[in-house]
């Protein structure tokens, strides 16, 4: 260690090392206390029966075995996968589509961008209440408009079939957040490429397919992973709007886990759910990373 200081940077090497650790020490403490410890502890609790009031009791794999036979667990997993499988691709495609439109030298870009981004700053609870009102089957705006054109409203948040699509639709209102990130990425695509392609006789669709999309593909990867992690954690809207109903059709994974932990005080059981959630997210992320070799283009850097 003492000789580590030798080298072009002179005797400051060792001192620097210690200073580096000093600067990051707040995070080191926070990491140990508020990330690593709870992470490991949650694995431990998943093998116990624990209700906070009495000491945790080791029960081995019993929580995991019980989960396999818990139909609500499977329902919540299905609801979450359904939600993720539709909302992530749909919002990705729409966000990219709008970003491409905005990137075509349209006049009033700043105004459009502001309008599309605005819903993303609305507090989730306020947005939930607003959409509950918009989806209201008797006097909500959406069903009123549908009635005007002769379509009976499906009942939205009151319907077992339509509650999830309703939440997905509402989620699209917030697509301004990924949209601005795509827009920033699009503005980094060199215009020479488009000009060159035009000379070659490429049509607009070709340019999007062979220039735009490959160029922004690292951003698509990044946003898709964030989107999947976010939708596995989907909670507030379901809690506020439907509390999981009707008939558990919006009982999402995080909501069910919350109920197990904080309403029934099944801390061990909920911890087992937490670890399954972690493994699912890890698998999904790895899978996307694996596939990304085939569709993400890193040549630009």
């Amino acid at each position, binding site marked *: 260690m003492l000789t580590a200081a030798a080298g072009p940077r002179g005797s400051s090497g060792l001192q*620097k*090392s*210690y*200073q*580096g650790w*000093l*600067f990051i020490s*707040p*995070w080191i403490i*926070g*990491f140990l*206390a*508020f990330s690593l410890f*709870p*992470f490991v*502890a*949650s694995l431990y*609790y998943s093998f116990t029966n624990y209700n906070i009031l009495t000491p945790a009791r080791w029960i081995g794999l019993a929580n995991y075995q019980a989960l396999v036979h818990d139909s609500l667990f499977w329902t919540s997993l299905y609801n979450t996968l359904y939600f993720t499988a539709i909302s992530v691709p749909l919002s990705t495609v729409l966000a990219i589509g*709008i970003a491409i439109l*905005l990137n075509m030298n*349209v*006049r009033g870009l700043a105004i*459009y961008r*502001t*309008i*599309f981004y605005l819903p993303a*700053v*609305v*507090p989730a*609870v306020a947005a939930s*209440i*607003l959409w509950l*009102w918009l989806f*209201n089957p008797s*006097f909500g*705006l959406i069903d009123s408009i549908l009635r*005007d054109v002769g379509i009976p409203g499906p009942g939205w948040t009151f319907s077992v079939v339509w509650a999830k699509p309703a939440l997905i639709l509402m989620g699209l209102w917030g697509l301004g957040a990924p949209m601005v*990130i795509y827009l*920033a990425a699009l503005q*980094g695509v060199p215009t020479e490429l488009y000009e*060159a*392609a035009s*000379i*070659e*006789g490429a049509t607009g669709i070709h340019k999007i397919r*062979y220039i735009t999309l490959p160029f922004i593909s690292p*951003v698509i990867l*990044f946003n898709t992973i964030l989107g999947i992690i976010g939708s596995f*954690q989907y909670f*507030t809207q379901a*809690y506020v709007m439907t509390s999981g109903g009707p008939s558990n059709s919006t009982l999402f994974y*995080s909501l069910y886990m919350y109920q197990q*932990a*904080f309403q029934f005080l099944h801390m061990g059981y909920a*911890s087992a759910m*937490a*670890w399954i959630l972690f493994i699912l*997210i890890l698998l999904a992320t790895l899978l996307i990373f694996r596939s990304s070799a085939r*569709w993400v*283009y890193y040549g630009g850097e």
Partner: protein
Amino acid sequence: MDLPRQSISVAHTPSRPVVRKPPRLRRLAGIGVRHGVLIVLALLFILPFFWMVSTSLKLPSQIFVWPPVWLPNPFAWFNYPKALGFIPFFRYLLNTLYYGVATVLGVLLSSSLVAYGFARVRWRGRQTVFMIMIATMMIPFQVIMIPLFILFHALGWVGSFKPLIIPTFFGSSVFSTFLLRQFFLTIPQTLSDAARIDGASEFAIYYRIILPLAKPALATVALFQFMYAWNDFLGPLIYINRQSLYTISLGLQSFLSAYGTQWGLLMAASTVATLPMILLFFLTQRTFIQGINLTGIKG
């Protein structure tokens, strides 16, 4: 993916036709279609806002009707004082401000120090430790939520803002640290070197040189954190159990469960909860855009 790499050189061969310009009429039609699509979409995005404000100004007799009333007549302003009277809005506002400002302080202080350590000091293992920190961003909050609750319960912090505030003083906002590090990396190294030659300590460089230069990035991080605190629901839901400590989000939710069909009042309360965020967004748009560009995954 193969990009048309070689096509640029083709531009110089005169035998090819010069850039194919679509006829004027077709181009105008293109612009028209583009704006048409964008305007329709923009209206769809604005409509919920319009409906929120419009409903908040209606009497029940104008709310429960079909076809819907677009513009309330007369404006039922009293929904606002009535809604704010039902919920101790001012109390909730103060609580939310406290949560927001305290965590902004925590994030600015700890994340800037940690970011400096990762961006401006060279030390062995830096890259590895940084990767570990980034990896923790992948751990969903739900996974550590339960042991954290048990920990804070044991410490006697549950029922106060401590569980939400104290971790931010220990770099819990990895996103902020990451953002600041990205910005710190763009500051020329020569500035630090010159100060070092003058005998400045590492902390002096952080405090006197880097922080003043990083004001825009610090503003971005502060803004994101404040908005996060304002919108946060799950955190206060778990830790805050007394109504006197409710944040605006918790207050709105309890208002909904108590007066679930009073849409005029609910929309008034939602408008009031949303308005500060919209104002903040308009006032800080430039900072916002800067932040979004910083999150870009370059470098």
